[in-house]
């Protein structure tokens, strides 16, 4: 059955890009402001990329349970550490910051970053009762190679970033890295809160590392969240305290 309705001309001011950027900055700030404490499981993983007949292979995986509480409390409990060579010594030390601002997601949309990036609306998607903006950003100047270009998806119900894809026009550390092929940051909704879900990055080094090769992936996964569940201060004080 085909239904046709007459066209309706809508008179309404379209939200400008500047207004969207302002709202995203406020939305991200509001997202963080309502978080009092959070607990999640974090997984760090390094995988050698597939090459020819050699499939991708995991090199190391570490899993923590992380507790955070405002203003500045954080504790991480290592649950699992797996290495392809168990006798090897991991040289990377992880420190989880106490903040919950998730700057890795919103670095280009913080108020102080507006002077560093150009922005444009790449598209809009209407999904049920959600209008999702796609905003592209790129650095205003190519001086700093660590400033990436990228694309974010913004849910205008909350004006928070729900997904981000990042690319680098040139290597940020050319003496070590040939290229960072792709970087993806995803969020997930837990209750009323948008929080980090995954961070994935594929990079290529200039020199082939023994048994690691050139191309490898680094990823961080975040799941099993408990937000504003009331983490006791004793978790951060007493080594043997339970949450």
């Amino acid at each position, binding site marked *: 059955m085909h239904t046709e309705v007459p066209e309706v001309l809508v008179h309404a001011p379209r939200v400008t890009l500047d207004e969207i950027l302002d709202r995203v900055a406020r939305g991200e700030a509001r997202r963080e402001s309502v978080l009092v404490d959070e607990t999640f499981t974090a997984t760090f993983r390094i995988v050698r990329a*597939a090459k020819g007949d050699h499939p991708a292979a995991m090199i190391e995986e570490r*899993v923590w349970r992380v507790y955070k509480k405002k203003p500045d409390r954080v504790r991480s*409990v290592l649950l699992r550490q797996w290495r392809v060579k168990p006798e090897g010594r991991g040289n990377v030390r992880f420190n989880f910051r106490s903040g919950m601002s998730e700057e890795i997601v919103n670095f280009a949309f913080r108020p102080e970053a507006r002077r560093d990036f150009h922005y444009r609306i790449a598209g809009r998607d209407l999904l049920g009762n959600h209008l999702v903006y796609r905003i592209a950003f790129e650095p205003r100047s190519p001086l700093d190679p660590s400033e990436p270009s990228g694309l974010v998806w913004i849910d205008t119900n909350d004006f928070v970033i729900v997904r981000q894809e990042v690319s680098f026009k040139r290597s940020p550390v050319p003496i070590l890295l040939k290229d960072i092929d792709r*970087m993806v940051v995803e969020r997930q909704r837990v209750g009323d809160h948008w929080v980090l879900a995954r961070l*994935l990055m594929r990079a290529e080094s200039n020199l082939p590392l023994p048994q690691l090769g050139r191309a490898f992936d680094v990823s961080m996964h975040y799941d099993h969240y408990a937000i504003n569940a009331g983490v006791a201060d004793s978790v951060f004080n007493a080594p*043997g305290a339970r949450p």
Partner: protein
Amino acid sequence: MNTIASGAALVALILGGFGTAAHGAPATHRTRAQASATALGPHAQADPDTSLDDFLDEMADSTDLYFGKSAAARDTAGLDSALAYALDHPENQPHERALHFGVMPSLAFNRVDGPVWGGALSVGDARRLGQLRGELQYAVGPNEWLGGGSYRTAVRRGETWWTGLVSGGRSSHAMDRDHAVGHLASLRALLTGSDRKHYYRRDGWAVHLERETATSRVGLGYRNMLEKPLATTTTWNLLRREPKLVLNLPAERGRVREIQLETGLRLPFTPVTVQLDHDVADGAIGSDFEYGRTRVAASSEIGIGDLATLVPQVAYGRQTGDAIPQAAFYLGGAHSMRSLESASRGGTGLALARLDLLGASDILRLAHIPHPAAFPIQAGLFVASGAVWGADPYGGPARPGKDGPRSEDWIHEAGVSLVYQPGIPDPTTLIRFNYMWPLGPGRESRRWSISISRALDLVKPIGEEE
């Protein structure tokens, strides 16, 4: 940017730490819904909103396809019991020491101290209980012990960093207090005797408190130091060349009690960073010298599409009161006029304007010249004008001028550079090979130089994380 740079640094660290690979444990693909449903402590389910969730899941699926094993969900078997055990046996956790120890060599070479052998030991973390650092060196030239200690702590409150530093000891300082002596200067002095800096000794202590946000910095400091002149003790170098400079400019001997104010601001809505430093030494606080020293600088970066960046920078300095060499302003070197030798001109006033054009593309690749991917070379152009006026710390006649130089005292230069941007220690660190044309009559004949500096080197960076 700092977060991403940290991420890139993380990747770089990983590269440094890994050397073996083999087949990894099998990964289990899980959907986002499944991942949130597994129990590991209390958790909250996502609100049912299928449209947006389906949309994001679809994109996540394509991400899974691209990243493969990296994107696969984790095997959760045993994590509940691992958590229970870890909480009951915290002693088995990787030892997160409250005290972090660091040991590093502390080496230098210049014509007043000669070879300087020593080491530094640090204990603690500035972001936790604070960092205590001690340094001990032996200066072979004058046969003197140098060194000292410091305590530094950094506290973050929201988006604001508060940093406190207390330090004391004995050390040699460059006469040009606006530009510290780097390792490259030591290397030049050691290899070829190209030591053009002037030095003096400081004995005493200092305190400094700083508040920094993403866009601003304010610092307040005080120092109480006995400043003494130094004589040249070492004229040899490894390549047995004639030293570029033998005489060391003598500092005025005296006790300096100085209050220091430092401010920096990233101007909103503009790509400009400004900095204002003001130092005051006065007899009222027990100083042998009385002077006021003000320096204002501004730097900017203006992108020309993806091709290049214009970097205009200006600096203005003015010193009043006792015209002592260690409080003067100096012109010359990588951080000011590249066609002048380091700190070869000085005065109680300084004006400098510099414009760099830095290309972003690898010119070797554009020219189809085979080269390692680790060494992309960029091209640069620069022009600069600078002047000093007032009392000459080198003992020459004072150059006329009160708040500015005479027009005939300005000197100019132009040049080209080949630039390598390694990405460490700072993404904007540039290793430059410069070829210069000093402009104007009676100019020095310096034509080429090698320098290491940050792109915006007239101002201190603001908002970079600890």
